[in-house]
């Protein structure tokens, strides 16, 4: 699927995010590196608080003024994202890179119709007429499997179920045919049946449109089924990266090994081997993993 002679669509080297807090600096992301090719799927795995979502927000330039991410390289194609002006970033966001957020309940605007929210990006970036945008919105709603797409356009978010709202979010991210999609736990809030459907949809659309996909999740079942490569984050650092098959066959780092042991599976011993998450502030010296590991020395 991936052509290695290509240039990566996204290059990140030594990305660091420090957050100043009342009790001292929180090193939320501590120097992570990764590359992403066109049409490739990267899954970032880790527990809540490990810095996954902050990384994705930094990529999108959505961190806000108080937090300044730093990196040696953070390039989307040829644009250095950290040096880019707000105007350049605005022209990228929603058009060439877009994001699917975790909570479909809170990330849609309750006072605008589905149609308005879907068409917004295309009207701003594409400079198309409302009629064309409307046509495209209907087409995408159908593609994400929403029945009676035309009548949905005039509905408000509260009139839709969680699964439908999440599909609207996905359709919204696809409106301008972006080259990169960052999906932050797109299926965590959904039923298993809907999860399988939405993931299939993402995979199909990706094959059709050739987008690169960064999927943030803590569900290794999801990772195994759709990722080309995996990056495991723990306490702000990447503890293991590699092709999916390798990581599942032989995770070399104890943390992913612990995560794999946590999944309830038929015929497996019913003990979870990871200990307690140590939290960010009280990071022990070394890998930041001290308290967590059953194999600790």
């Amino acid at each position, binding site marked *: 699927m991936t052509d290695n002679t290509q240039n990566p669509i996204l290059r990140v080297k030594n990305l660091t995010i420090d957050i100043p807090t009342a009790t001292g600096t929180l090193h939320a992301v501590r120097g992570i590196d990764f590359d992403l090719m066109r049409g490739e799927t990267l899954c970032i795995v880790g527990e809540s608080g490990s810095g996954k979502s902050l990384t994705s927000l930094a990529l999108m330039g959505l961190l806000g003024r108080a937090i300044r991410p730093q990196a040696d390289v953070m390039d989307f194609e040829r644009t250095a994202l950290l040096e880019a002006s707000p105007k350049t970033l605005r022209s990228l966001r929603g058009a060439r890179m877009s994001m699917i957020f975790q909570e479909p309940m809170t990330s849609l605007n309750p006072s605008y119709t589905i149609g308005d929210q879907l068409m917004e990006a295309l009207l701003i970036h594409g400079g198309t007429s409302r009629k064309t945008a409307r046509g495209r919105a209907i087409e995408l709603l159908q593609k994400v499997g929403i029945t009676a797409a035309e009548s949905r356009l005039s509905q408000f978010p509260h009139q839709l179920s969680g699964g439908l709202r999440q599909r609207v979010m996905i359709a919204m991210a696809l409106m301008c045919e972006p080259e990169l999609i960052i999906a932050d736990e797109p299926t965590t809030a959904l039923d*298993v049946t809907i999860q399988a459907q939405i993931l299939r949809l993402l995979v199909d659309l990706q094959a059709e449109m050739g987008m690169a996909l960064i999927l943030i999740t803590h569900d290794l079942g999801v990772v195994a089924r759709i990722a080309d490569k995996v990056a495991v984050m723990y306490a702000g650092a990447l503890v293991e990266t590699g092709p999916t098959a390798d990581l*599942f066959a032989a995770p070399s780092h104890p943390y992913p090994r612990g995560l794999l042991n946590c999944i309830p599976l038929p015929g497996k011993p019913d003990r979870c081997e990871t200990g307690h998450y140590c939290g960010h502030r009280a990071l022990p010296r070394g890998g930041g993993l001290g308290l967590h590991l059953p194999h600790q020395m």
Partner: protein
Amino acid sequence: MNSPDTPILELRDVTKTYTVKQGLFGKSKPLTALNGISLQLNRSDVLGLVGESGCGKSTMAKILLGLEAPTSGQVLVDGKPIGGENRLELARRIQPIFQDPYSSLNPRKSIEDIIALPLRVHHIGDEASRLKKVRDILDVVGLPSRVLTNYPSQMSGGQRQRVAIARALVMRPEIVICDEPTSALDVSVQSQILNLLGELRREFNLTYLFISHDLAVVEHLATRVAVMYLGQVVEENSVEGMFVQTRHPYSKALLESVLTPEPGLGVPDTHLGMAYPNPIEPPSGCHFHPRCAAVSEICKQQAPRTQLTTYGRIKCHLHDETVQAKLVQA
């Protein structure tokens, strides 16, 4: 006490109908959330109740907790029907653990207040003996007693869920209704909570009704499984039976949707299609037929009967011998 054969909890043909208005001036229409549910729970059983959102799982939990009255049918505890008068008595025996530990704990109360509240409501003991009970139960759920003065906002999701479990168990109930107790938690925390629930069940001889949409979680803990679809139980089975030989097409689709960490398998196609039917206008015949991979003509016209199987019950024409025989003749 009744004879040991009496199920500790029994639902007899329980139906719950809500009236829903469509639009501001729209007509009111009945929404059948539960449609003739009959279930039995024996002492120290764990019944896993599985189904998609909107199938009536949580309505059932509310009815069992006495928070809602069924429209028709009966709920029996130890063979005695529950009614409006003995709410306190019922609360002593049945306690809930809810899904979201972020909204089910009062943010303005300390952990001690939260866990001691059931004891105060039931006028059990004095202040000192209550505090002792709270400390004991904290120890049981694996929290240090220093968290007593904490507030929920100072605790992580897993810790909060432990507090919720402590609050449910401080009355020493016999039945605990767990409404998706782990779905808001991280995988590693989820398995800790599941292990804890398993240990507590053995220690206190508890009976669980465990509601979830994740069959993998249910298999981990349950002894029996009931699959619900649109307010009906479509299949009930022992946990071994369910996972070795699933019969109902809907149960099969649910099982297939569980993503096991096996790279290279890809995302399964469950053939469920996209749309969950509108519960106000349920499909004709078998409610599942528009999404069923093995649908035939009879499914669209006639609702299936409940068939007894070796370990449980099933509601599907595919497993109704008389229907199948007729089909062969025709």
